[in-house]
């Protein structure tokens, strides 16, 4: 059973040396899922047969001496907004209940090409709209550190799965922080790569100009290996970058931050941040400075408009992206009372199929794009986006990477913010600018807040295409912290009793 505590890189080495088989790992992983998932609800679908068949296949190939990729045989969890042939894909929505896609997302295709068994599809806020998974039509996931709390959102299924040893690694998607916030509150590592680094083809779109797929893991090296496995140009995604960004795995082997200039974002520290969060964050910075990094303060005044701009652009794009859910070609179909016309069927289906947060954002986005309001809302929001990009560009003239806490607080209680959408939105203050600017960001665990013993995350940002910088600084800080603690982050986690 101890396999499930291993990291992906450890499993990779053990598989390569034939110390264990992929079937053994996968079976152990599935057993742990069967034990924990009924309580934690990380997975919406668990694909026992598929995973074991894939594991068997990769074991046979290895036995034949076939050359395999680094992660071959390491099982993985996939967020439920990526299309998977033959596996139900709902994006956390009732409107897609039972939908079996006829095609694979490019990232899924890459996972299969890397011969990583797929354990299942992870829970999420409906269409990735939310910060807690409470907007999932299939109930929230729970935080393994405290089952009364959220594992973050929208990718709380992936973060809770990785944090509770139901998978070593998982795929997430990040539109305003959906990888990084869940990582921060579950003590895991989450990376949103540069916009375009990973193909979005097959990702059920939320905000197309903001969405980016990325890795969720328990350490920096695992995240790096997974990013390498899923990234690269894709003819199916016109916005995917034409060039490779180099090896993140190599970057994660870095052991020095000497001379690295780290910019602290003035607007994302101090007031409004939980004391325990600020304390751990400062401690991490002190460790980096002690190892030769230099701290500079940078200012990004436009960040104060980031949430407002984000909550215009993202709902606007979502209102259009979600228009296709009309019952005509796939998904739920609800017949209205009385004589059915196509309009009435569409309306009845969307009324019943979408949850309240989705409806709220469709209305918001439809309004923001309306003629007469477009310039004031969507147009202005795009201008803010340009300002944020300019502020970041200026900051990166002074610093190689920027840093802030990933979130203002540790994991909040389930239900705590559900009646107050604005409070929920404010949670993403530190993560949203990266999506608006298209730059990469990483959330790295930096310990537990002393007031609640819950994980705290630090977020690093790098210029677009410089994802490697995140892995370089992340790898060093991770080592510094582990040396200081004399254990790994996950070793702080309470033992899960789910019966």
């Amino acid at each position, binding site marked *: 059973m101890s396999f499930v505590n291993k990291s992906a890189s450890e499993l990779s080495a053990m598989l390569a040396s034939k110390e264990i088989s992929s079937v053994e790992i996968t079976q152990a992983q599935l057993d742990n899922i069967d034990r924990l998932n009924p309580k934690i609800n990380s997975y919406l679908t668990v694909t026992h047969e598929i995973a074991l068949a894939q594991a068997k296949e990769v074991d046979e190939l290895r036995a034949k001496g076939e050359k395999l990729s680094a992660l071959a045989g390491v099982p993985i969890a996939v967020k439920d907004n990526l299309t998977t042939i033959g596996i139900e894909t709902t994006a956390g929505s009732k409107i897609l209940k039972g*939908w079996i896609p006829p095609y694979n997302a490019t990232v899924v295709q890459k996972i299969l090409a890397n011969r990583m068994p797929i354990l299942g599809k992870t829970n999420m806020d409906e269409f990735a709209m939310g910060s807690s998974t409470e907007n999932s039509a299939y109930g929230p996931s729970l935080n393994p550190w405290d089952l009364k709390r959220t594992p973050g959102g929208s990718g709380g299924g992936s973060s809770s799965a990785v944090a509770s040893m139901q998978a070593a690694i998982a795929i997430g998607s990040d539109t305003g922080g959906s990888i990084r916030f869940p990582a921060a509150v579950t003590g895991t590592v989450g990376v949103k790569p540069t916009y375009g680094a990973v193909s979005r083809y097959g990702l059920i779109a939320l905000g197309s100009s903001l969405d980016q797929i990325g890795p969720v893991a328990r350490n920096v090296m695992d995240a790096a290996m997974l990013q390498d496995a899923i990234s690269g140009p894709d003819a199916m995604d016109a916005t995917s970058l034409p060039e490779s960004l180099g090896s993140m795995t190599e970057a994660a082997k870095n052991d020095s931050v000497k001379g690295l200039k780290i910019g602290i974002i003035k607007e994302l520290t101090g007031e409004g941040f939980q004391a325990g969060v600020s304390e751990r964050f400062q401690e991490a910075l002190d460790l980096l400075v002690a190892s030769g990094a230099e701290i500079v303060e940078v200012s990004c005044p436009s960040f104060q408009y980031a949430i407002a701009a984000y909550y215009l652009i993202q709902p606007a794009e979502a209102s259009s992206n979600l228009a296709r859910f009309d019952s005509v070609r796939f998904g739920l179909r609800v017949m209205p009372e009385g004589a059915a016309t196509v309009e009435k069927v*569409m309306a009845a289906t969307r009324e019943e199929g979408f949850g309240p947060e989705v409806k709220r954002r469709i209305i918001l986005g439809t309004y923001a794009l309306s003629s007469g309001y477009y310039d004031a809302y969507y147009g202005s929001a795009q201008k803010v986006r340009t300002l944020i990009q300019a502020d970041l560009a200026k900051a990166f003239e002074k610093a190689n990477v920027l840093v802030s806490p990933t979130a203002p607080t540790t994991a909040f209680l389930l239900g705590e913010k559900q009646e107050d959408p604005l409070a929920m939105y404010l949670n993403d203050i530190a993560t949203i600018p990266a999506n608006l600017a298209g730059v990469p960001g990483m959330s790295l665990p930096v310990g537990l807040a002393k007031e609640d013993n819950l994980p705290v995350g630090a977020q690093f940002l790098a210029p677009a295409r410089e994802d490697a910088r995140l892995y370089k600084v992340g790898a060093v800080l991770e080592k510094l912290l582990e040396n200081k603690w004399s254990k790994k982050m996950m070793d702080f986690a309470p033992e899960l009793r789910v019966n």
Partner: protein
Amino acid sequence: MAKDQLMDYQKALETYEVVIGLEVHVELNTNTKMFCGCANVFGDEPNTNVCPNCLGFPGAMPAVNGKAIENSIKIGLALDCEIAATGRFARKNYFYPDLAKNFQTSQYDEPIAFEGKIDIEVPSGKVFTVEIERAHMEEDAGKLTHVGGSTGRIQGAEFSLVDFNRAGVPLVEIVTKPIYGAGDEAPELAAAYVRSIREIVKNLGVSDARMERGNVRCDANVSIRPKGQEKLGTRTETKNVNSLRSIERAVKYEIQRQAQLLSQGTAIIQETRHWHEDRGATSSGRPKSDADDYRYFPEPDLVPVQPSKEWIEQLRATLPEKPAIRRKRLQELWGFSDLEFRDVVNSDLLDEIDDTVKAGAKPQAARKWWTGEVARIANSEDKDITELAITPSQVAQIAELVESGKLTDRLAREVLTGVLAGEGDPAEIVAKRGLEVVSDDGALLEAIDKVLAEQPEVLEKIREGKVQAAGAVIGAVMKAMAGSADAARVRELVIQRATEK
């Protein structure tokens, strides 16, 4: 449906000034669709050329067809347009069951081509310069078939079927600026304009340009205002008028209908209207206001199109000649009189005759067949000539058979009927129906001898040198041969026989 009252056309033109605007959709004939790899084919089994993308499945993303962009630029250049340094796709959001994503990927404020113009000659010989506002790229929607109900329209239908084969087919929409001052020739100008667009895209090779298949579709905006009034009148948009003749008729109808309404003090409603070919009338569609809100915004799944100057110049260098220049060249080449040539253009037969000549026919013969017998048949069947099942090469073959004396004009007309009935190529029909001219002199001589024997007085006259007298013999021989003889040959033989004896 209540019948519209129409004002007499000339009377309407005395009181009102006509302003028209034309939107022409051209379906490109690229191998694949605009944003996916599905085949762009007309007439396949419904929903066979579809994929996650053109079905609007969750997660699917568009990938631009480079050939469609190239063809759009060519159309822009042929219309003397500026080509945008940056053309952006935009989403036009509206719900409709034939629109898979419930938004159409189109272009909004950054079209690929803009500010063009084209000279259009109307039947009177007058030339109008029509200004082009823009030509932009977009995708076609699927095709709805309404089942049940009497009209085939969505109202009253029991259910509707959607064929997504057409969804995502590349379209270029060409929009004119308002066209003023065409007066009573506005309907002809509208038709002549669409004819020119069709000719251009056909000669560019970027579209099959078959109106009956919807390759070229026209929406005609018509408004009228009292002469001297500056403010434009309320316009109506008559949708999908799918033949040149219909365009002319629909514009004329709208002028007369609107004039009647205004003259009796009734306001024009801004709306889309449908043209009904069968009863030659438009009917009210859905009201349309300027507040129709498509919530356009830049398509975030696509990057802007940025054609390089070099590429644009390369494409410009490949353009075929302009319609006006082509016409001048062809008239000289064919040696048609002005009247003959105008007749050809106005009958919309320029391409057919050009293709027929290219297939080997003499220009006058090609003209004679197309403007004569073929046009007559189309007219009697109330069809567009292009709807008839005959190709230029078949016409050329018929002309050739006549030219070489193998067919008489009368027999050739019979062959033509056979071709139109789908019996095959002219040569096959000649063989099948046994229509070939009797060129066996033996059979002819036998008939001639019989007639001459019956009419010794005629024989005598011919021998005396009164050759005109042979006419009576020729007539009788042709009758005896049931018309399948070449009259000229019969004449030769009669004279020969008479002088021999």
